[in-house]
């Protein structure tokens, strides 16, 4: 299928661009780390409190990091005016978005996986027992963040004050992701873990809704 | 009727906000109408 092959090619380009410099990944990991440490200083949690608040704080840090990490997504294309070439290269403009959002999801996931051991140590929360469910939540949540973030970064790239605008647009929009992911994560990491399937289903619905919206309206986001 | 003043406060503030909003619209509208008249006068060629 033309869409899939276009997407695959563009995805390769996105990944190669990032791994050449790895600046996005390293800065994002460090940023989340710093935010988590700062939370500890601000709240000085006890062991019990760490367990209760830790996952929520982790998701908050992920959201902040993502809203910064998503900035270059379309800005990168603007500096060399590569966007028009991209649009000419593909039949379906959705391929551009699909490639970017898959790349962004992968970057986010990679960052989170790198963060997990550190998070586990700093907040004294064992993560191994529920690892696969935790990864599922991270996947669905990161997917949601990437889908909305990729769409919104296409918008903010065309406006002024884009560094401030993207978080401003993105964070309220992602409230459902934050609330649900944090709740499900907290429940997974409790002393007696419970898998909240309703929450996980909700994340999937969020992802589906915004993926569909992006598919329907993506081409207008790229208009010259 | 102990909380009556809270109820009145809510209605007063709420309607105050709506009234203020309407007032700003009405003022800007009348300013613009004046501006349109002024500009129309500057363009005598039957526009």
């Amino acid at each position, binding site marked *: 299928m033309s869409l899939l092959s276009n997407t695959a090619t563009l995805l390769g380009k996105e990944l190669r661009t990032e791994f050449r410099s790895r600046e996005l990944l390293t800065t994002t990991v460090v940023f989340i780390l710093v935010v988590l440490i700062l939370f500890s200083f601000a709240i000085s949690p006890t062991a019990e409190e760490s367990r209760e608040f830790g996952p929520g704080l982790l998701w908050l840090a992920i959201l902040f990091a993502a809203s910064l990490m998503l900035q270059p997504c379309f800005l990168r294309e603007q500096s060399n005016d590569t966007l028009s070439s991209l649009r000419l290269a593909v039949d379906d403009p959705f391929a551009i978005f699909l490639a970017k959002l898959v790349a962004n999801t992968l970057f986010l996931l990679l960052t989170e996986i790198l963060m997990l051991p550190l998070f586990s140590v700093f907040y004294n929360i064992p993560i191994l027992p529920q690892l696969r469910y935790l990864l599922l939540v991270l996947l669905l949540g990161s997917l949601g963040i990437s889908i909305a973030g990729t769409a919104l970064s296409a918008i903010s790239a065309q406006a002024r004050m884009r560094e401030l605008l993207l978080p401003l647009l993105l964070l*309220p929009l992602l409230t459902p992701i934050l609330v649900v992911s944090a709740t499900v994560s907290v429940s997974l990491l409790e002393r007696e873990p419970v898998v909240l399937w309703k929450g996980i289903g909700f994340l999937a619905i969020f992802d589906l809704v915004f993926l569909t919206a992006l598919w329907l*309206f993506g081409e*207008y986001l790229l208009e010259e | 009727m102990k909380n009556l003043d809270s109820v009145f406060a809510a*209605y007063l503030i709420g309607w105050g906000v*709506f009234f203020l909003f309407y007032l700003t619209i009405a003022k800007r509208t009348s300013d613009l109408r004046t501006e349109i008249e002024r500009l129309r006068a*500057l363009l005598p060629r039957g526009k």
Partner: protein
Amino acid sequence: MAKRIILGAVAVLLVIASAYASFYIAPEERTMGVIQRIFYFHVGSAWAGMDAFLVCFIANLLYVWRRQEKYDWLGVSSAEVGLVLTTVVLITGPIWAHPVWGIWWTWDARLTSTFVLWLLYVSYLLLRTLVEEQDRRALLSSLFGIFAFLDVPLVFGAIRWWRTQHPSPVIMGGQGSGLDPTMKKVFFFTVLAMNVFAGFLIVERYILEKLKHEVDILQREAEA
């Protein structure tokens, strides 16, 4: 012109009538007493605000489809009116809460969701100030408006689910607490009144936008 005056007069009459009904026709609530009468105004404004945002959503869709500036004018008008109504909801909520609970805010599900809604449309209006070119501004804000409105049920759903996991005081007499039939009638009458009033405000704001456009055209002609 006459139609506008009639609309305005009808709106004002309905609103006065609904206020009268809220105080003299609706029976007093057993537990909370007179403070509960805020309910009609508070929830009435909330529903009218949502209707305004629905109008905005439809206007956004129509703009993306048709690219006629009148839809952009309708979009910004209904978004502003919706925001004003939502602001009143957020102000009257704490005024209700404080005498009853002794606190101004409890992150109650509906009030919290309303706050996120407020943030979303503040972002919508802010985005508009950051894009200078008219057509681009209309397109970008319409697209964000569409994403924002699609997010609304997800926000309300997510926060309500979150609240079932972590219950807290419900400020506005819970969803299920059946309304006495007279209260119901007064409530729906108030919703009608607030909607007509919102419609009147949208019309007035729309005309302002239209005049702005006319001034722009005349100014350009005058400079020519």
